[in-house]
């Protein structure tokens, strides 16, 4: 389709372009419309590329650079290279491995739960029923609430003495005495997972809903007309067709959960037994002002993420090809 435009322009060019071609030296470089067009493309891109380089590229390289130094927060210009000492110390640090373990546990438990609940919600929202608009708005609400606010809300709800969650559980008769949701290390991780699932399931549901909507709709209808039970339609038609979408959405969420910070920061309030990799890195970087060591932890996290990103990007390549 683009070729049409190009042809037209080249046609126009050839009518008055003779002079340009005869021009000697530098101007000759612009004689072809294609090259001039190329330059203007990059001019349009320039501000964005500059912004990305300034706020992502440079800080990223600098962080990796810092991870090989003994820089401190108050002496960012005065530091020495210490090779891989930071990484060696990191590997020896018990708290770091606890943070790695916590991050992995949260990811491995939370993401599948989100996928299951997200799928249920997506199936509900895909159905045509009265009040679907309201349902969509309601489902979006947990996603909209700022993470800090939801963490604070849940902290109050999970309060061991006055919390409504314990109260309700006791009233229904599931437990006899209040559960210390936040005070106990194990339960604290459970709470983090609970709140994370509550908060991010809506987003998962939207990703899956988009996938559902791009499936051929007539096969659902045909199955419904033949009164095949929904369980069968789901297992035999929807799930296999949705597999690529589910995988991409899960990788997307895994990448996000690996970086989890806000929730853990509030819910575990500085307790290193329930910290995650991001919380660990920031604690050393800012609270202990050890930029070198903190950067090393951040770089290690980056490696985990980079490894996963390769999967994510290769899955997205299909979409990229569609865009081009």
């Amino acid at each position, binding site marked *: *389709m*683009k070729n049409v*435009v190009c042809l*037209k322009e080249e046609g126009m060019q050839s009518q008055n372009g003779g002079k340009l071609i005869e021009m000697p030296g530098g101007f000759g470089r612009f004689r072809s419309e294609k090259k001039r*067009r190329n330059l*203007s*493309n*990059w001019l*349009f*891109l320039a*501000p*964005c590329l500059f*912004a*990305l380089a300034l706020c992502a590229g*440079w*800080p*990223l*390289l*600098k*962080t990796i650079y810092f991870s090989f130094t003994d820089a401190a927060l108050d002496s*960012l210009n005065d530091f020495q290279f210490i090779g891989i000492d930071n990484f060696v110390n990191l590997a020896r640090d018990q708290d770091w491995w606890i943070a790695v373990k916590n991050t992995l546990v949260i990811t491995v438990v939370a993401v599948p739960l989100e996928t299951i609940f997200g799928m*249920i919600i997506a199936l*509900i929202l895909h*159905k045509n029923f009265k009040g679907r608009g309201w*349902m969509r708005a*309601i489902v979006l609400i947990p996603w909209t*609430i*700022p*993470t*800090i*606010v*939801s963490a*604070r*809300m849940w902290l*109050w*709800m999970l309060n061991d003495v*006055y919390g*409504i969650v314990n109260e309700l559980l006791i009233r229904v008769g599931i437990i006899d005495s209040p559960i210390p949701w936040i005070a106990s290390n194990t339960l604290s991780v459970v709470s983090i997972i609970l709140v994370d699932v509550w908060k991010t399931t*809506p987003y998962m549901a*939207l*990703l899956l809903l*988009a996938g559902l909507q*791009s499936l051929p709709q007539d096969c659902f209808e045909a199955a419904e007309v033949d009164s095949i039970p929904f369980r069968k339609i789901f297992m035999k038609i929807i799930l296999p067709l949705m597999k690529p979408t589910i995988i991409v959405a899960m990788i997307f969420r895994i990448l996000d959960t690996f*970086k989890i*910070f*806000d929730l853990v*920061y509030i819910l575990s309030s500085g307790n290193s037994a329930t910290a995650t990799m*991001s919380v660990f890195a*920031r604690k050393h*970087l*800012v609270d202990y002002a050890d930029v070198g060591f*903190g950067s090393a932890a*951040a770089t290690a*996290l980056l490696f985990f*993420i980079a490894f996963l990103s390769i999967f994510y*990007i290769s899955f*997205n390549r299909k979409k*990229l090809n569609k*865009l*081009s």
Partner: protein
Amino acid sequence: MIKAENKWKYKRLLKNVAFAAICLVVAACCLFPFYWAVVSSFRDGANIFSTDLWPTHLSFENYKTVFRDKTFLCSFWNSAAVATMTAFLTLTVCLSAAYPLARHKFPGRKRVLMIALGVTTLPQVAVLSGMFELIRVLDIYNEKAALVLSYMIITVPFTLWTMTNFMKSIPKEIEEAAIMDGASQRVILTKVFLPILGPAIVTTGLLAFIAAWNEFLFALTFTLTNQARTVPVSLALFSGASQHEVPYGLIMAASVLVTLPLVMLVVIFQRRIISGLTAGSVKG
């Protein structure tokens, strides 16, 4: 015959009831925490410890206290200003960049999109120390500019993808007509595409605004004083004299105030937000 029909009707009714029940449960799970925050925020003093599920007290004391709190009002203003500026800057930069990415074929185009996708996966912590240094060098520590600059790493890649997708959907005839009329690229973008893209700009702008409004890690690290803090940070640092005196009523009132604008935006724009969220990610 009639019996069979009745049976079928009965089954259908049962199905509908079950579906409605699932909907109700989902809605209750989504809304309850926010509902509880609202109920708690209207309970003053010792009433906050009441576990009645219904709003039994209606006191505006907490809200009055929050509105008298200068620090909180200040952070509210900071959040609004930072989020608006971030959304505006992101849109400007990305509109310009999405134009060649969506409409032209040129070498390096795919690479740019790939880099943007890569940046979306970057953990914020991984740029923290580098960003800290950059902010020191630019001398904008503890200022709004520091937050706007650092938020661009979150908003730009996502907006770029979404905007490219939206711009790709404009029919090529419109562009061709403009070219035939002798319009330059800049004119095509600002005079022809921009009006068409109105809804898309609202959507992506809104998403960038929400992302900036909710951001916590950078805001926590790059601000120091009460006057510079944004809402999430002041909420996180909001605490009483001791651990047992946390002013939950106040926190809930502040939480409701912070969330209400967002909830309203989502209820009004839910269709647009959903299309924006899915356009920028894994559809297809």
